[in-house]
């Protein structure tokens, strides 16, 4: 079943629904992708929760996937936009799940609302989320080296494979997704990560929170995720041994198992 297209500020926003047919009063789960990605990274969990009867919103951030640009270059803007999307979709009290840059959007959104977020899941997270100069510079110049850096560092050193998803070479999947980004989008995303102010609002997050870290994450080290979990009042940490930053590709089943607990909170 096709996803939904809505208008926010006069621009088309695509929202994937995991092929669900939920009741309008069903609980909601929202997925926010990372830098340079789109909603397709959530295919497995989106389809799972849709089958469970939840209303699923796997958004394409502005300028990503099927959503019109331009992209934002501030996490605060993305979080405010997410609030508008959920209002438009009439999805109150959603479980909000974000990966990498999307985890910062989810984090900020959760901090901005008392009732709009009933549960939070932060995957491959770090606050702050600094980006190296070589990656920033290559992204600024729309150079393929930016894609190569991000893609290589997003996968564990075990990237020679043995993917649980039959036949899939996840390095190329990540590369193709980044290649689909329009010029400037990846740089805007990295700028948003790099300038994220971690000190602004974290104390106001009260909802149950899941933090998933990969022990071999080179983009957002496990220690950084642990720090995020320890800064929150009701956080549960899941550590995936041997897993890199691209945990949705590397450990799809373990990630889903962890999400089930918090999304059904």
């Amino acid at each position, binding site marked *: 079943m*096709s996803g939904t297209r809505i208008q926010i500020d006069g621009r088309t926003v695509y929202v994937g629904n*995991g092929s669900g047919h939920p009741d309008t009063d069903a609980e909601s789960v929202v997925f926010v992708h990372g830098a340079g990605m789109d909603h397709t990274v959530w295919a497995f969990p989106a*389809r799972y929760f849709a089958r469970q009867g939840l209303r699923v919103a796997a958004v394409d951030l502005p300028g990503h996937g099927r959503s019109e640009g331009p992209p934002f270059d501030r996490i605060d803007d993305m979080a405010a936009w997410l609030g508008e999307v959920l209002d438009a979709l009439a999805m109150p009290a959603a479980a909000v799940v974000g990966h990498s840059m999307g985890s910062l959007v989810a984090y900020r959104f959760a901090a901005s609302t008392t009732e709009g977020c009933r549960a939070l899941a932060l995957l491959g997270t770090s606050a702050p989320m600094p980006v190296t100069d070589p990656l920033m510079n290559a992204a600024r110049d729309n150079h393929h080296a*930016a894609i190569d*850096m991000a893609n290589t560092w997003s996968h564990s050193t075990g990237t020679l*494979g043995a993917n649980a*998803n039959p036949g899939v*070479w996840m390095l*190329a999947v990540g590369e193709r*997704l980044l290649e689909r980004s329009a010029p400037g989008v990846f740089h805007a995303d990295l700028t948003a990560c790099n300038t994220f102010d971690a000190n602004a609002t974290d104390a106001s997050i009260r909802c149950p929170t899941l933090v998933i870290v990969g022990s071999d994450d080179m983009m957002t080290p496990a220690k950084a995720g642990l720090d995020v979990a320890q800064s929150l009042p009701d956080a549960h940490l899941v550590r995936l041994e041997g897993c890199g930053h691209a945990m949705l590709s590397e450990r799809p089943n373990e990630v889903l198992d962890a999400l089930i607990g918090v999304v059904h909170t």
Partner: protein
Amino acid sequence: MADDEHRSPRSTGFDTLALHAGQRPDAATGARATPIYQSASFVFPDSDFAVGLFNIERAGHVYSRLSNPTNAVLEERISALEHGVAAIAVASGQAAMHLAVSTICSAGDHIVASRSLYGGTHNLLQYTLPRFGIETTFVDPRSPAAFGAAIRDNTRLVFGEILGNPGLEVLDVPAVAEVAHDADLPLLVDSTFATPYLCRPIDLGADLVFHSATKFLSGHGIVIGGLVIDGGTFDWEASGKFPTLTEPYEGFHDLVFAEEFGPQAFIVRARREGLRDFGACMSPTTAFHVLQGLETLPIRMDKHVANTREVVAFLEAHEAVESVSYPELPSHPDHDLSARLLPRGAGAVFSFDIKGGRDAGRTFIENLSIFSHLANVGDAKSLVIHPASTTHHRMDADALAAAGIGEGLVRLSIGLEDPRDLIGDLSRALRRAARATR
């Protein structure tokens, strides 16, 4: 900032991928080699997990027609070697071609294909697919413009072999890909003769690749198998011509593959429809054998090419030989293109015309002792065949000529033997052929 000031991290080398991609030591037993999971089905941890596997919510295996752990290693490894997002292992090269076509073409659609094709592929396109409403126009593989001119409103696929069979026309993949993409169509390449060690069509612009794994990939003439690789490069939605990928599929609960799986849309549909319904899966034992071949692919291909160059040089200088067709020769029309697209070598299959025509050819073949006369290529052992009487026997003289095949043309597949022994074998047979037809 200047272009050369940005540096990509070094990626894993081809030789390492050929040995390791897709596999880690078996977690349960520590087995270093890929185990053969000779099991039709796989136990579900619980009912919800089972539904999740069927509904593409979970990663794992259900039934070996759809996927199998041994096959998955092979699929992931060939994806890595071809720089694709994913692959599917199937029962034969023919099954691979059929799976690629049937995933995106339906009755009423049209294909533009090179006219220099493996006989089995020609049969499928010329005679069998029309029965299912899919027609093909065959064009000169050396003319990208001819591919473009043959494209119609209902064309859905452009297809060619990286090295034409048996004429060894080199497909100008970048140019033909541009023609296809200008028409919002994908380019499918049969890269059997090159293998990813000699050429990676996806990096040159192709969108889909398939192999007969029977040939160089397995490399020892012991299995029949095929592989389809999705580059993940083609934008099916932007094209607007591929409803199987962009419109709800009733056969899978109205799933829209391109929307939910993005760059994996083609391969997910191919597995969830093509393997499910047509069922041409690969045996896990076959996958194991192909994996053993892949592990030594780089060194085998180097040896295949080195031997071929020696044999080609010998034949070209031989008085009983009319002509030799090998893309690395300056006399070959695609010499420059071959050097550009196949810098490591133009493969180990080539053809030559023997003086004396059909009778000389028959005498020659019957007097070889190391070369085996059979219908295959890409074995570790050297092979020989006479296309007009075997692989292309259904084609009449005019069709043979159109495909660049003379009645006296002999095709060789050069193996891994000592090249001095191969040349000695050829020399004796040529001498006897010349004597018999004098």
